[in-house]
């Protein structure tokens, strides 16, 4: 697979603060790549540099072979951005905003009309399409913003916190749609998020970023495996005197077995595949199982492992942050 985004020591300083610190990663064509990190980690700054809004202080990146500093106008032609902060025009209707966007991306008028209806129904805004954005709720605005980013089917779509502040159903719909986009249009999707579940269900690979540095890049399942795998807990009805430890340890994926009476705690890689084998070994010895459970590590634990903090502890409700931003904007107006 060809890499479609490649960064070379991408760095951004704001005065003394290094918001993004010599970041190197590559994104493959057709991949959904996620940048996961807490508030202030440098996610938006990274996206802003990749989308030519900000100039890197140091280093650079190439997008489809175009340098983000030297060929910025070429880069703009192949990307789409759904920013974290809202950019729709409140005095226009939803449909007018979309039409304006379509024309800025030089879509043919008839094509634009068709797509506008498509994306509007997708984000469930058809019925409000001809109302001024002024009257929209925060979630509706965010959905309109998403619709805008989708309208011109860019080769690479950048989504900065695409589901921030949305309710559970809408988030699920949007995840489905993002996957669908990748499938139907072979789009590459680069997104940032601080939701673990989003990174987990949506991304092929994630990069964990903290204080501007990339801590690790891998697929969610590999990351979880890197914690030392899954845990299988097993209770046997009989066989207090039979020791199964050595029998389990012959299975290559089994790392560690602990026995307490007839309770076993087994650390394994690829728990789903190993579980049937373990059950089979038990049955072969004419023993019976009363209870079995497979505990998968969560990305939360991965996150803790790599940043030394739990995401939720430091997060501070981001919905609140977002709401505050909107209120502030209103007041300034």
């Amino acid at each position, binding site marked *: 697979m060809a890499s479609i985004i490649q960064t070379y020591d991408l760095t951004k300083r704001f005065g003394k603060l290094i918001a993004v610190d010599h970041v190197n990663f590559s994104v493959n064509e057709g991949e959904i790549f996620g940048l996961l990190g807490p508030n202030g980690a440098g996610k938006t700054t990274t996206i*802003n540099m990749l*989308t*030519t*809004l*900000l100039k890197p202080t140091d280093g650079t990146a190439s997008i489809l072979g175009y340098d983000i500093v030297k060929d910025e*106008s070429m880069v*703009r*032609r192949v*990307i789409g*951005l759904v*920013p974290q*902060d*809202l*950019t*729709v*025009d*409140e*005095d*226009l209707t939803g449909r*007018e905003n979309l039409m*304006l*966007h379509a*024309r*800025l*991306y*030089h879509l043919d008028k008839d094509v634009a009309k068709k797509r506008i209806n498509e994306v509007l129904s997708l984000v469930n805004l058809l019925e409000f399409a001809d109302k001024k954005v002024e009257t929209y709720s925060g979630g509706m605005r965010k959905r309109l913003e998403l619709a*805008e980013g989708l309208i011109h089917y860019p080769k690479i779509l950048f989504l900065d916190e695409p589901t921030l502040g949305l309710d559970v159903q809408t988030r699920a719909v949007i995840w489905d749609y993002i996957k669908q986009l990748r499938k139907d249009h072979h789009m590459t999707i680069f997104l940032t998020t601080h939701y673990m579940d989003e990174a987990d269900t949506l991304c092929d690979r994630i990069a964990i970023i903290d204080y501007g540095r990339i801590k690790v890049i891998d697929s969610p399942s590999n990351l979880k495996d890197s914690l030392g795998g899954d845990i299988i807990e097993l209770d046997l009805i009989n066989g207090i005197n039979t020791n199964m430890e050595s029998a389990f340890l012959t299975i290559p994926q089994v790392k560690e077995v602990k026995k307490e009476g007839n309770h076993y705690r087994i650390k394994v890689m690829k728990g789903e595949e190993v579980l049937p084998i373990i059950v089979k070994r038990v049955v072969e010895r004419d023993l019976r199982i009363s209870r079995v459970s497979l505990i998968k590590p969560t990305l939360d634990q991965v996150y803790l492992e790599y940043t030394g903090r739990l995401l939720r502890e430091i997060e501070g409700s981001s919905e609140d942050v977002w709401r505050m931003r909107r209120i502030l*904007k209103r007041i*300034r*107006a």
Partner: protein
Amino acid sequence: MIDEIFALIMREVKKWVREPFLILMMIIQPTLWLGLFGKAFNLSGLISIPPEIIKELPPDKTHIISDLFNRILQNTFGGTTDYFTYISAGMLSIVILFTSMFSGMSIVWDRRFGFLNKLLVAPISRCSIIIAKVSFSVLRGIVQALLVFSIALAFGLKLTHNFNLINLLGILTTLLLLSIGLSSLFIAITIRIKSWEAHAAVVNLLNLPLMFASSALFPIKQMPSWLQMIAKFNPISYASDNIRIFILSNEFNMQILLHNFEFLIIFALTFSIVGILVAERMLKFD
């Protein structure tokens, strides 16, 4: 490129016509000024001769004297004895000044509301953004100036007896040039400004001298000489004088007209080029 410029202009037009209140305010202000300055200070009253003196003068001398005074007035007010007419012509330029100032502000707004970011990542030229802003500002300025012009007409603006299409075209061209230059100027200045407070400070600094150190409201000849110096480089003076000529006469002094137009054309060209150059370099996200 035309398409994207047009789309951006249409956005502003839609926003504009949907705010009738704002349109009203933009027209009420100059109208109030017209009323306050133009009607309240009837300057010709200042130099009129008290009736008791006139009574004592021999009748054959009175008309000579009144003639003399009229000439003095006409001379001061560039061909009219009527201050309302004088200031109405200047007010059209002031309307252009206000709308141009506004166009600078709308960039600050677009930045604040994130709309500018959308434009900056879109595959459009940065010039298009500026050209659209200037074009809309010109359009709005001219429409509002014409509205104020009709209001002034209704309240007693005296046109030359055979005001015709050429006079009107002359006024429109003058407004157009002034508007292009001033909008580009204000946009170039505000392109890096992020808060309205800073914007208001900068704009006020420019506004007052542009407005008062010009022949829009008072004749330059009456000013102290240092003010005259400023007024002589002020495009608003040239535009006001030009408009006044087109309102008051149709036997044009070609030399003066050409001189005024020359200045205005150079002004408009210089600043639109400056505006576009500044946009190319400075229109950025941070």
